[in-house]
């Protein structure tokens, strides 16, 4: 199953997204949230991001979402040495994209389809 990693500047946002996405997608999707700096402030922590990527990886690809540009920068840097494309960083709204990705992953979709679902969250109306 495709895994999902959510990277936020805020530990609360990351934890809340994981709880909400897990409720929608069920318990089978590998779903990891990382938020905040190593000392608990608002920011990112490359070390925990790396650990989360490993934890979410079941061999079928991992889709990664970030909240702000600097989260994306950190993830990209962490992924610089990953050249086999297992980890796919998507530029999607972090809450809506993570839920769409998690639900798609739980349906057994491929990593390409999960990426597409996350990206489409940009345009899906909420009602």
């Amino acid at each position, binding site marked *: 199953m495709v895994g999902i990693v959510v990277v936020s500047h805020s530990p609360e946002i990351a934890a809340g997204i994981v709880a909400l996405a897990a409720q929608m997608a069920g318990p089978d999707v590998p779903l990891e949230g990382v938020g*905040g700096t190593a000392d608990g402030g608002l920011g990112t922590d490359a070390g925990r991001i790396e650990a989360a990527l490993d934890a979410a990886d079941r061999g079928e690809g991992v889709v990664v979402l970030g909240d702000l540009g600097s989260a994306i920068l950190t993830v990209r840097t962490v992924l610089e040495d990953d050249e086999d494309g297992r980890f796919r960083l998507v530029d999607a709204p972090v809450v809506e994209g993570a839920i769409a990705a998690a639900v798609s992953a739980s349906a057994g979709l491929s990593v390409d389809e999960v990426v597409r679902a996350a990206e489409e969250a940009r345009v899906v109306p909420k009602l």
Partner: protein
Amino acid sequence: MSSVSVDAWMQEASTVITANAERLTELDSAIGDGDHGTNLTRGFRAVIEALAAAEDELPPGRRLILAGKTLVSKVGGASGPLWGTALRRAGRSVGDAALDGPALADALDAALAGVVELGSAEVGDKTMVDALTPATQALRTAVEAGEPLADAITAAADAAAEGARSTVPLQARKGRASYLGERSIGHEDPGAASTVLIITALGRALEG
């Protein structure tokens, strides 16, 4: 022929950034989240520690790569991955050679290319790229004109400072400050300001 010592560069960068941390943080408070001084102070201190713990025989390129990795893991803001990538790319460019004029010119080119590849900023977007780009160009021009490395670095630092000043009237189009839209106008970009310090530190790290 003189060259730059990686350890001395990082030590001088750490010193000047720590001394200017408050100003950097003030710049970042105006158009960002007010952590740029703290971010880089913490990051470069960790770099110094990492280099001190590294084997003495580790060649310059590897020392830069270690410094870059340390910044990535210790700085929880944009400047961590950006300067982390810059130093890693510089290190790959240098390899086992000494950081003499031509090697430094290539290293800064590689660093800038890495920053641009990672963050997609162009000159005029009000980022560190606005300082690093003219610095890189000035250094290469001076080195290719056969000027002493010390003078080439001075030219690079001047160009960086000029570039940083040029960010004041700009509207930010990358990074956190871009959220502010027009409100970012009238302030110097903190990442451009710290880039001036880091380039200037090269001049105090010359040996031979």
